[in-house]
């Protein structure tokens, strides 16, 4: 799943550690989510959405291949 985490974080001039501290997770977790190596659980996705003040679907995007298959 793709996401806009890196862009949203850059807009707010937050480091990965800044975001990790707000989410109460490790910096490695933020990095893994940003790079698409790990898709967060629904509770963590809601937490991320709350931190940015956005809806989940404004942060996490469905893969083009998945949309094409639908």
């Amino acid at each position: 799943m793709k996401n806009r985490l890196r862009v949203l974080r850059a807009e707010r001039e937050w480091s990965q550690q800044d975001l990790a501290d707000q989410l109460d997770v490790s910096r490695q977790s933020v990095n893994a989510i940003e790079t698409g190596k790990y898709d967060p659980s629904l509770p963590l996705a809601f937490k991320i959405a709350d931190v940015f003040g956005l809806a989940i679907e404004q942060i996490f995007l469905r893969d083009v291949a998945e949309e094409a298959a639908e």
Partner: protein
Amino acid sequence: MFARMRKKPELKRYLLRIALAMVIYLGSLYASEVLIEDGGMTGWPAFVLAALPGLAFAAIFWIFTRLIIEERDEFQRLLYVRQMMVATGLALTSAAVWGFWETYLPVGHVEAYWWPTIWCFGLGAGAIFNKITMGTAGECM
């Protein structure tokens, strides 16, 4: 790593449990050498005493499982689970292959306590696997 460990009570508990298990392991191993090997202890007390090092070693499985349960960071939890799967795969595969080698080939006998030992080394291999595939080995190994 150590700065973050100070903040994480689950890692503190993990290290404390490991240290306690190792103290029981070394103590019971020494007692078995002195009382059974040298002192000639027999019967059920010898069975109980000789089981203690193995049980202390087996506690490592419980301790690592507790770490997975108590870890609050879901990505770290994933890394631990992957480490455990690599370790289990390595240990069981080694045991199965060596078992058949012993049956059909002139290879030396390997004492059974080496398989959980390989499992512990497998946790290290799992951390390397995580580092290669996920870009991080997590915080505990």
